[in-house]
């Protein structure tokens, strides 16, 4: 590759990534050499850099599809819309980090700030990659940064346990992923998604057992990031151990990235094929498998959540359940599917980060993560209780909130699919009712139980900012969903 070819690439499409990269490097240098008192301003720099990246990304709206670096890095509507979710979610999470009121020797350190940026960069690379290798590099950048972030609270027992579990499970999952990728490479002879798709649509894909095994193993490996069965066990321990903003990151951004990579691989490869007669066996095997995983994930996530008292564990199981819901559009493979997944993830960004934010505030005030921190919240701080009610209602899928529209979309998508996925839709509906039980038991704590002694002193403006943004997002998308839906199309 000479200089001329390099210059001929349209590097402009990578401006958001470069912004994050430069900010990450700058922050790590500042953290290393900078003065001690500067350090609390580091998150502000990160917020600003994400803001700039969003502006750059906005500038690319409607840009034609571009692929650079020999088709390994692509810009298309898919990457545009998903990067929007990633950047928006990270923006909210940095606001969450900024809102911290208590000092903590480890959490005050700058590592968080730039590791999170590195992880974000990894997810953005995943969003744009058109090649298995690039996908994998992005995935590893995300994973390794996340492992460190989880284990950063080195004096915390749960944090150590969580990090250890995360690394070991993550390692196994990575092995699965690579193994699956090697099969796919083996039968298609290429690492480029375009080529793989072409090979699969030919006779190679017709019931070839190696292809089935390869894709299924690949899916299992990738299921780690979105915490589907069988790689879901890490989530509760890791969420519990990690600092709350990191849990929020893993629950939202990392999960969105996991879905992106799965969509990239499975949607791009199989959607273009359509259900061609000769590929039936391959198609049915793989999507039958995904459907099974989706059912198991919904059921296990929601049922086990019933028994949780630690709020972060509860949200972990609930997020496992949500991952199951989001897999449904992937199985139904309708023209609506991408839109549905995107919308649900967008709704999920607002409602989950909002819920984590409320927990973060209470956890700092009450030094506990038990569900009882919510007891009597309505008397202590009515507005905070109302905000949490909105987030939980949205997670439960009550009308008027973004979560309801998301679920409605998925349900309609499942029924309209050919063949109609009544089983998946039915289980989703059933599990939604199960999820009422644990979400509503938090309502009971907030509104019906009497407050304990510790009262929340006051909530600062910095803490309100992400909360208000999340409330606006949750309600706004619930009442005016067409804004987001029109934006997408």
């Amino acid at each position, binding site marked *: 590759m000479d200089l001329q070819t390099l210059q001929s690439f349209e590097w402009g499409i990578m401006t958001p990534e470069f912004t994050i990269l430069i900010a990450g490097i700058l922050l790590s240098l500042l953290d290393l050499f900078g003065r001690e008192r500067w350090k609390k301003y580091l998150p502000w720099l990160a917020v600003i850099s994400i803001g700039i990246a969003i502006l750059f990304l906005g500038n690319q709206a409607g840009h034609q599809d571009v692929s650079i670096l020999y088709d390994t890095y692509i810009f298309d509507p898919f990457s545009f819309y998903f990067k929007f979710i990633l950047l928006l979610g990270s923006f909210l999470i940095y606001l969450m980090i900024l809102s911290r009121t208590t000092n903590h020797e480890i959490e005050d350190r700058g590592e968080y700030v730039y590791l999170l940026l590195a992880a974000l960069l990894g997810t953005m690379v995943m969003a744009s990659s058109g090649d298995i290798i690039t996908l994998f590099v992005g995935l590893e950048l995300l994973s390794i940064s996340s492992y460190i972030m989880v284990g950063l609270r080195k004096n915390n027992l749960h944090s150590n346990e969580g990090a250890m579990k995360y690394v070991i499970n993550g390692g196994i999952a990575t092995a699965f992923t690579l193994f699956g990728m090697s099969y796919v490479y083996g039968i298609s002879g290429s690492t480029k998604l375009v080529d793989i798709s072409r090979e699969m649509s030919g006779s190679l894909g017709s019931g070839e057992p190696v292809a089935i095994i390869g894709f299924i193993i690949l899916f299992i490996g990738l299921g780690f990031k979105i915490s589907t069965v069988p790689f879901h066990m890490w989530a509760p321990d890791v969420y519990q151990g990690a600092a709350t903003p990191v849990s929020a990151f893993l629950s939202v951004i990392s999960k969105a990235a996991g879905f992106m990579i799965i969509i990239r691989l499975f949607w791009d490869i199989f959607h273009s094929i359509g259900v061609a007669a000769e590929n039936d066996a391959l198609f049915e095997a793989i999507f039958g498998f995904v459907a099974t995983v989706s059912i198991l994930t919904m059921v296990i996530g929601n049922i086990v959540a019933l028994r949780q008292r630690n709020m972060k564990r509860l949200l972990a199981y609930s997020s496992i359940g949500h991952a199951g819901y989001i897999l449904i559009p992937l199985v139904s493979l309708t023209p609506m599917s991408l839109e549905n997944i995107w919308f649900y993830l967008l709704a999920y960004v607002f409602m989950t980060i909002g819920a984590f934010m409320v927990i973060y505030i209470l956890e700092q005030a009450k030094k506990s993560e038990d569900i009882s921190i919510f007891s009597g919240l309505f008397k202590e701080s009515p507005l905070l209780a109302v905000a949490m009610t909105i987030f939980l209602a949205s997670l439960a899928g009550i009308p008027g909130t973004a979560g309801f529209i998301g679920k*409605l979309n998925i349900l309609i998508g499942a029924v309209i699919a050919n063949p109609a996925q009544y089983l998946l839709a039915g289980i989703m509906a059933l599990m939604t009712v199960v999820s009422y039980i644990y979400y509503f038991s938090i309502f009971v704590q907030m509104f019906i139980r009497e407050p304990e002694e510790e009262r929340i002193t006051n909530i600062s403006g910095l803490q309100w900012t992400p909360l208000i943004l999340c409330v606006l997002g949750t309600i706004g998308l619930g009442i005016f969903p*067409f804004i987001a839906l029109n934006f997408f199309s």
Partner: protein
Amino acid sequence: MGTLSLLVFSPAIGILALLMTRNSDNNQRTHVLALLSSFIPLLLSIFVFALFQGGNQLEERVSWITFQVAERTLTLDYELAVDGFSVLLIILTTVVSLLAILSARWMVNKDLNLFFIFMLFLEIGTLGVFSAHNLILFFVFFEITLIPMFFLIGKWGGTDREEAAFRYIIYNGLGSMLLLLAIAVIFINVGNTNFSVVADFFSGGEQKRFQAGMAIALLLAFGVKLPIFPLHSWMVKVHVHAPPALVMIHAGVLLKIGAYGLIKFGVFFFPEGFEILAPVIAILGLINLLYGAFLAFRQTELRAVLAYSSISHMGLILLGVAALNEAGIQGAIFQAVSHGLISALFFLLVGILLVRTQTTHLKRLSGLARLTPLLAGYFLVAALAGLGLPGMSGFVSEFTVFLGIFKTMPVIGAIGTLGLIMTVVYFLRAILNMTFGSYRNTFGNLKDLRTEEVISATILLLCIIGIGIFPNSVALTIQQTLETILVGIGG
């Protein structure tokens, strides 16, 4: 913003006003505020009623979401409209809500402000349910009622309040999820969920199996709300453990959503499907009628008697629906309205009683007439209305239902009359034991009804007698709705 939207969201004014005065400890002022703000929806609903009687079409439509699936477009709009049936239930809602808020002053003593906020929130949901003119919007409001109900039961209820609240949420959640699935299927077939469009679409009546399937789904979904045996256990719990002011709305209005849905979506959209199911519905109705009546006879707790009597009365609605002819459906609608008024009256009285005695146990209440003759008298009148004394609304509805059912299924009708006799027996047993039983002097001195209590009970009573004497006031209002439905049945 159209008149109907204004009506649906008018309780929000009260919510805002109450939120602003949240910190005041002045219960008196809070109550007056809530009461005044619940007059707004009442006046608006009367206005809507007048407009409707004047022959105005109150339709509203704002486009909301469209789904583009391949070459098809699915449209989902914000659409409101009323017909005769819904306009009656809207009036019922605003009247009962007003009286419930009025009576809550004596019955509820903690966090009054929050209680009223949730009550008004519930009113928004209920008014929305009856004004919605498409299925998904109907579902949206239907689900919205779950949240305030959960809090109202769980926070202000009796001993088992939290269990009752969870039971409420689980049963109704299951029902509504089934409804949502059914709506999704309809939506995908029709491409729209507007009531008239859906009814037109299925009027061909070709797909018999599909129609039957939808009829079963709707029967189950609304069967939870109605409730149909064996899906009734939550409802008994709610009747017994929820605060009486809330049960006035719950038994008076919310349970009617089941009947409303069955008639307006079920019979109206899928007449063929319901024709196939008619014998099943008739038998379920019979079971409800007899089972409810029998268990009502066995209860020792007044509120449980009333709960089972509600189940029994809902059986009549099912019988009316199963008859699938003009008289049957008309009777079912009559029964919905009449039972709404009667049970609201009953629970108003229960609330009044509970404030004084702290118990509704029949044995302990024995001899009430000696202490509070007026209250006992009202109870007796309510019971007479409930057992269908001629001249009251209960009689009209029972009579019309049986007129319908005897035409199509005489055997079921004959067995059903047994239920009527049992109704008389259990109502008289409960009320006479309570009022005229041997006097035990467990309570010392009890105050009889106060003026405002008399007024609110009398309003309901007048409505009940009014419908009983002038049934045409209701019949004319629902005439057009009935005709539209009957076109589908082919009767």
